[in-house]
C-alpha cells in the first residue's frame, strides 16, 4: 500500500488487511511468567474482534470515547483497535496519574467505558466514580487482587471477550459492518496534552492524520514489517501512539511489551529492537549505568575502553554518516567494534538498532555523540501531540546535535515574525475536544498550526528549537532571555537533573538547580562525603562546589554566543526537594511548570535577587500513596563567576 492509498484507509482497515496478507507474522509479544508469548496478526484480529463485540454487547456505540489506562500491554493496544473498529475513540490516559488528575480527563471526555490494566487502576476509577458518576463499565485485564470486587461496573477482559464471542455468533455481520462504516476523517484517537499551561486539552486526531505521519515516517526510514520495537513509553504519549500503534499498524511490524516497568532494560536486551524510540533521559540513564560500571572495572578494561572511546569520538559518527575516514582509522574502528562497541551495544540491547529516535526534550551533545560514535544511528525528531509527532526528522547522514532536522515529507514549516514555528500538513489535529476557542487560537486561516515553540533555521535549512515562544522573555538591558536554552545547557551535566532559570524583566539571570541524586550521590561516595538523604546531599558544600563548576562552564559557553552572552547565570541555589509531577511542579512528561514554580517558591526567587546568603523554606510534598508531608530547609545561595563576551573572543 502506498501513502496515498493509506491516507484513505482507517486503522481497522489495516488491521484486517494484515490479518489477510500476513496472518502468521508476529504482531505482538509480551513476556509473561518469564516467557515471551507471541500473537500473530490473525490472532490479534480475533482478539480485537471479540473485544469489540463485547464492548458493543455492553452498549458501546459509535462516537463514544473509551478510556484506556495501564502500562503497555498488548490487550490495551487491542482495546484501542477495538474502539476504532466500532467507530469509537480510544482515549489513553497516563497510568501513573493520581485519581484527582484522571478525574478531569474522564469527565471532560465523558467516559462511560474504560479498559484498564489492573486493580490499581480499578481502585482509582471507583474512587473517581464518587464524583463523576458517568463511568458505567470497567474492564480489567489482570485479575490479581480482584476477587473481592463485586461492583456491577466491573467485568474482566476475558469475560468481556467471551461476551463478545457470544454476541458475534448471534450478530455475525455486525463487526464487519461497523468497520466498513469507518471513514478516514473520523477521529481515530484522542490524546490529552500534558497541560504545561492550564488544564489538559483533548487533541482529536483523525485516521488520516496519524496515517500520514505513520506512512511518512515509514517511507523516510524505510521501515518494513520485520522491525521489532519495544513499547515501554506511556500509551497516552503521542510518541508511543505513533510508534507502537500507528506505525506498527501501517508497517505491520512487531510490538514487544516488557514484563514490567522495572524489567525494561532486561527486556530491551532480550528483544534487541531494530527500531527504537526513547526520550533523552532514557539514553542518559543507560550511559550513566555504563560509566558507573566502567569506573568499577579493572584497569586494563578501563584503558581499553578509554582508548577506543577516544577513537570512536573522533571517527565513529563520520563512519556512520558515510563520510571519508582514513583506512587506518577504519581498521582500528573495526577492532574497537569487535572489542568494545559491539559488546557494549549488545549489553544495552542496541545491537540490532537500525534507526533510533529521540525527542521530547533537548539532548546533550556529548550524550548524542556517544551513541552515534559507537554506531547507533540515533537521530532527532520534532513534533507535538497536535502534529502527530511528525514535523521534522533528521535524514540519515545529515545529523546535527543541535537541530531537529528538516521538514518531514509532506510537511510545510515556516517561522512567524516573532520566531514561532508554524506547521501545515495532513498530520494535524482536527481540533481540541469541545474547545473550539482553543483550536482557533492555534490554527490560523491558512491552516497553519502555531506550535508555540520559538525556532530558527540554520544555514543548511535545519530547524533549531530554542524555547517555548511564550517563555522567551526580555531582560532589562534588552537581551533575549530563553530560559529553556540555558536550562538545557545545565541539564547536559549528569549532576543536574532539573534547572529553572529566571531572568525575564530582570537585570541578571538566576537559577534553581535540582541535583541528580544518583550521580551526585555516587560522586560524593567516591570522595567519602557522607550524607543522609536528598535534602542533606543537596545542601552539602561539596555539592555546591560541584554545581558551581558546572554553571561556570555553562557561563563560559553562553559567553561565546553573541545572542546569549547577556544571559549568564549570576546566582543560584540547589533546591532541597526534587521537582515532582505529583506536586504539580512538572508535567507528566517532566517539563517544568514555570509559572507554578515561580509562585510556589517566590521567597526563594526574591532571595536570589537580594544580597541574602541563605533563605529558609518549608514546602508541602505529596507522597505516592497520597499522604502529605512537609520538607523544610535553609537553602544556601551561591554566586557564580561570569565571563565577558569580548574577553573570550580575544
Amino acid at each position: 500500500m502506498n501513502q496515498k492509498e493509506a491516507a484513505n484507509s482507517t486503522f481497522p482497515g489495516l488491521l484486517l488487511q494484515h490479518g489477510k496478507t500476513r496472518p502468521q507474522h508476529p504482531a505482538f509479544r509480551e513476556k509473561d511468567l518469564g516467557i515471551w508469548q507471541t500473537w500473530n496478526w490473525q490472532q490479534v484480529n480475533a482478539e480485537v474482534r471479540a473485544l469489540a463485540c463485547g464492548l458493543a454487547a455492553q452498549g458501546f456505540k459509535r462516537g463514544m470515547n473509551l478510556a484506556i489506562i495501564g502500562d503497555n500491554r498488548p490487550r490495551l493496544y487491542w482495546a484501542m483497535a477495538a474502539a476504532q473498529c466500532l467507530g469509537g475513540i480510544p482515549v489513553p490516559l497516563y497510568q501513573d496519574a493520581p485519581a484527582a488528575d484522571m478525574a478531569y480527563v474522564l469527565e471532560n471526555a465523558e467516559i462511560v467505558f474504560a479498559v484498564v490494566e489492573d486493580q490499581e487502576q480499578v481502585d482509582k476509577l471507583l474512587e473517581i466514580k464518587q464524583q463523576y458518576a458517568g463511568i458505567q463499565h470497567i474492564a480489567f485485564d489482570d485479575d490479581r487482587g480482584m476477587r473481592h470486587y463485586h461492583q456491577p461496573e466491573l467485568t474482566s477482559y476475558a469475560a468481556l471477550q467471551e461476551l463478545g464471542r457470544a454476541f458475534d455468533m448471534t450478530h455475525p455481520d455486525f463487526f464487519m459492518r461497523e468497520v466498513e462504516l469507518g471513514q478516514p476523517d473520523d477521529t481515530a484517537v484522542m490524546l490529552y496534552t500534558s497541560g504545561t499551561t492550564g488544564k489538559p486539552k483533548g487533541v482529536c486526531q483523525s485516521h488520516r492524520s496519524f496515517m500520514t505521519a505513520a506512512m511518512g515516517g515509514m517511507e523516510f526510514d524505510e521501515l518494513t514489517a520485520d522491525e521489532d520495537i519495544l513499547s515501554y513509553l506511556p500509551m497516552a504519549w503521542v510518541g508511543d501512539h505513533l510508534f507502537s500503534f500507528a506505525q506498527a499498524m501501517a508497517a505491520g511490524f512487531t510490538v514487544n511489551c516488557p514484563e514490567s516497568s522495572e524489567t525494561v532494560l532486561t527486556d530491551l536486551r532480550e528483544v534487541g529492537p531494530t527500531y527504537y524510540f526513547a526520550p533523552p533521559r532514557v539514553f542518559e540513564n543507560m550511559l550513566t549505568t555504563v560509566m558507573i560500571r566502567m569506573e568499577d572495572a579493572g584497569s586494563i578494561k578501563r584503558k581499553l575502553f578509554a582508548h577506543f572511546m577516544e577513537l570512536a569520538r573522533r571517527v565513529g559518527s563520520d563512519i556512520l554518516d558515510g563520510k571519508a575516514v582514513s583506512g587506518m582509522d577504519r581498521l582500528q574502528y573495526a577492532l574497537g567494534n569487535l572489542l568494545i562497541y559491539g559488546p557494549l551495544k549488545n549489553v544495552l540491547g542496541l545491537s540490532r538498532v537500525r534507526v533510533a529516535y529521540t525527542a521530547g526534550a533537548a539532548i546533550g551533545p556529548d550524550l548524542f555523540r556517544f551513541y552515534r560514535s559507537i554506531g547507533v544511528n540515533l537521530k532527532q525528531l520534532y513534533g507535538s501531540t497536535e502534529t502527530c509527532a511528525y514535523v521534522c526528522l533528521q535524514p540519515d547522514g545529515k545529523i546535527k546535535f543541535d537541530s531537529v532536522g528538516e521538514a518531514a515529507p509532506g510537511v510545510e514549516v515556516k517561522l512567524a515574525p516573532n520566531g514561532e514555528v508554524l506547521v501545515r500538513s495532513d498530520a494535524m489535529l482536527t481540533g481540541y475536544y469541545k474547545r473550539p476557542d482553543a483550536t482557533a487560537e492555534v490554527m490560523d486561516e491558512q491552516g497553519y498550526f502555531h506550535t508555540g515553540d520559538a525556532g530558527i533555521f540554520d544555514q543548511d535549512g535545519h530547524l533549531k528549537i530554542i524555547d517555548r515562544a511564550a517563555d522567551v522573555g526580555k531582560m532589562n538591558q534588552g537581551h533575549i532571555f530563553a530560559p529553556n536554552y540555558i536550562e538545557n545547557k545545565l541539564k547536559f551535566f549528569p549532576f543536574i537533573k532539573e534547572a529553572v532559570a529566571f531572568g525575564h524583566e530582570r537585570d541578571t539571570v538566576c537559577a534553581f538547580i535540582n541535583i541528580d541524586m544518583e550521580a551526585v550521590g555516587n560522586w560524593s561516595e567516591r570522595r567519602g562525603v557522607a550524607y543522609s538523604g536528598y535534602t542533606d546531599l543537596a545542601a552539602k558544600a561539596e555539592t555546591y562546589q560541584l554545581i558551581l563548576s558546572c554553571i561556570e562552564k555553562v557561563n563560559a559557553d553562553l559567553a561565546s554566543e553573541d545572542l546569549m552572552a547577556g544571559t549568564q547565570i549570576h546566582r543560584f541555589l540547589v533546591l532541597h526537594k526534587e521537582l515532582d509531577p505529583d506536586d504539580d511542579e512538572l508535567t507528566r512528561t517532566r517539563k517544568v511548570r514555570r509559572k507554578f514554580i515561580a509562585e510556589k517558591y517566590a521567597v526563594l526567587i526574591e532571595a536570589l535577587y537580594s544580597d541574602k546568603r541563605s533563605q529558609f523554606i518549608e514546602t508541602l510534598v505529596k507522597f505516592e500513596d497520597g499522604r502529605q508531608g512537609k520538607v523544610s530547609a535553609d537553602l544556601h545561595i551561591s554566586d557564580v563567576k561570569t565571563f565577558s563576551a569580548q574577553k573570550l573572543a580575544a
Partner: protein
Amino acid sequence: MADNRKIGEVILDLQNISLAFGGVKALTNISFNVREHEIRAIIGPNGAGKSSMLNVINGVYRPQQGDITYRGQHRKDMNTYAAAKSGIARTFQNIALFKGMSVLDNIMTGRNLKMKSNFLMQALYWGPAQKEEIAHREKVEEIIDFLEIQHIRKIPVGRLSYGLQKRVELGRALAAEPEILLLDEPMAGMNVEEKQDMSRFILDVNDQLGTTIVLIEHDMGVVMDISDRVVVLDYGKKIGDGTPAEVLANQEVINAYLGVAH
C-alpha cells in the same frame, strides 16, 4: 473462584508444650491452636519463646512434654523432613538463602520435595527430569509474578537489598506450596514501604492461595492489622490469646510490654 479465605476447623493443635534446654525453660506448658486459613500471630518480648515455638512446630526442637495434633494426626513431636513433607514451610529470622545463587534458583530449591526424578537424572537433565524441571519452573515463575520480583529474577541473592531478600525467602517457602506457612519476623529491619509491601504479600498469600499463616512479628501495628488471632508469650509462658482487640485489652499483656511496678 471459591473463597479460600474462610476460617475453618483447627488444623494444628498444640497441647501443654514444654521445652527446656538444660535448666533453661524456653516454653512452659503452652497450649494453643491454629485454624485453617487464618493468620495467627505469636508475639512477646525478646526471649519470650516465640522462635522456639515455631521450631517446635516444624520439628527443629523436640518438646519434653506435650502433644501436637496436626490435621487429626496425633504426635509427640515433629521432625523437619516430615513437617516439610506434610505441608509446613517456613522463613527464618536471619535470612537463610543461598547467597551466590540467583533468585530463580533459590526459589527453585523450594520445589525440591516436589521433584520425583532422582539426583542423577536431574544432573544429566535427561528425560522425565527435563519435563519435570520445566513444570516446576512454571510454578516458580508464578511465584515470581505473585511477589513482583521479575526484575531480579537472575540476580544473585547476595546482591539484593534486605527487604528483597526477605521477599525471595517468602518465595522459596511458597514454592513448597505449603498448607501452613511459618514466618519468623518477616518484617524485621524493613522500612515502612517494605513493611507495607510485605504485609500485602502476606495477606495475598493468605487470601488467594488460602495458606494458613503463623507469624512472629515485633511491629505491633502490623500484627494488629493483619492477624485474625494473636497468642502472647512472656518468659516461655502464655499470657494471652484471642483477637487483636482482646489481646490489646488484656492487662497481663500490657504489663508484659510496658513493665509493671514491683
